[in-house]
């Protein structure tokens, strides 16, 4: 059995040392080692986007990254974007636009949407839809999710 690797992750601004086996995904490291349960395990195969986090400024799938690959990285999860009473503008917009039902895909949707706005590649609604195609919502709230992202992107929520 391969010995554990000592790695350092800065998660939501807090630098932490972890001891992980090579095969532990970033997702499992966040959920099981750091007890950050906001990031969700949907398919665990990179198809649904529920595990999306922002790693060194880019949205990635935490299920398809090994934690050891991200040694030294800065990671933002849904817990780092906002908290009750101090929500991120996109979290506010999700409430306002009724952009979820069961809520399971929501942390991934919001991390993905925040990164999409930051990237600046999408101008039109069509382009936002295309660049949100990696986040599936089985409840079918997609229309409202795009509404929420458009509202924040266009400055309705500051």
């Amino acid at each position, binding site marked *: 059995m391969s010995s554990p690797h000592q790695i350092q992750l800065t998660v939501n601004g807090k630098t932490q040392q972890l001891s992980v086996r090579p095969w532990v995904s970033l997702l499992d490291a966040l959920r099981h080692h750091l007890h950050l349960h906001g990031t969700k395990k949907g398919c665990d195969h990179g198809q649904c986007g529920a595990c999306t986090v922002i790693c060194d400024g*880019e949205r990635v799938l935490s299920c*398809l990254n090994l934690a050891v690959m991200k040694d030294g990285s800065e990671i933002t999860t849904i817990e780092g974007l906002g908290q009750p009473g101090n929500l991120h503008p996109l979290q506010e917009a999700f409430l306002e636009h009724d952009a979820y039902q069961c809520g399971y895909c929501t942390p991934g949707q919001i991390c993905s949407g925040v990164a999409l706005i930051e990237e600046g590649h999408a101008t039109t609604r069509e382009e936002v839809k*295309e660049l949100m195609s990696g986040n599936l919502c089985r409840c079918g709230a997609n229309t409202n999710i795009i509404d929420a992202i458009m509202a924040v992107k266009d400055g309705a929520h500051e």
Partner: protein
Amino acid sequence: MNNFHYERVTDVDTAVAAATGAGNSYLGGGTNLIDLWKYDLAHPEKLVDLNGIDELKEVTELPDGGLRLGALVTNNKTAYHPTVQERYPLLSRTILAGATPQIRNAATNGGNLLQRTRCYYFYDAASPCNKRVPGSGCPAREGHNRLHAILGHSEACIATMPSDMCVALAALEATVRVRGPQGERHIPFADFHRLPGEKPELDNTLGEDELILSIDLPARGFADHHTYLKLRDRHSYAFAVVSVALGYELDGEGKITTARIALGGVAHKPWRVPAAEELLVGQAPSEDQFARAADALLEGASGFKHNTFKIDLAHRAIIRAGAMAHDPSCQRPGAKPSL
């Protein structure tokens, strides 16, 4: 899923040395390899993580006017690179037609070339599959074969190469620069992927332990007239049923001087027929001319129960791509074709 060892390297020579040995694999973005490992289809003894090799993360100008894309540059960084967008917009658009932003942020250029087929039977460890277990059989021939090959398939295998990016790289006549225990060599893109024949377990001609260093683009980028037309079963985040990467250059009289057409979703490698492209030289672009080229490109095509429609579909897609290439400005990512 098996347990494995992990080693992070910071230079190419150490990487090649570390990967030498049965069961060792290079690890780039991991988007396909880690998934295959989770499905119990890949069983690495050791993963050699390349992400510390900074020299493979650069996009650099080449003296011949071409552009070198480092093997570890991500698909997204490549697609949005200003030089790629300006001089090789066909490549940029093609990359953005594949996968999702999250996957493209991790997937590397080298890894894109090495991704495995998405044949349903290859991915089902309980099924026979000649690509996964040579000699075990091919259930796709008589089974679900909608995404499968209509050109260049063999008795042993009818799988397709799933990459979008590679279809554009074939049309651009890129070169793959690799290094292995025997040193460095350059592989023309047309010779990188292979047809299945009797050895479907081999997707490409990369030697054992050879590492892709870069993908080198020649100067000609078809920036004025090009398109990537991808036809798929949903509007986004799906593999191509049929795709066409097409580019041409015109002379002062509006006649084609050089044309390239590569097809995706139809074979075990991006499908090109230089003789079909030659038919277009000296002609003004028109539906009839692209139909002639399509005839030549699809010569010998044969389908299976669920994919014979792709022969007609590919023919029409080539004609449509020819028309779309005339005005690439209508092809923003996410935009619907205006024709």
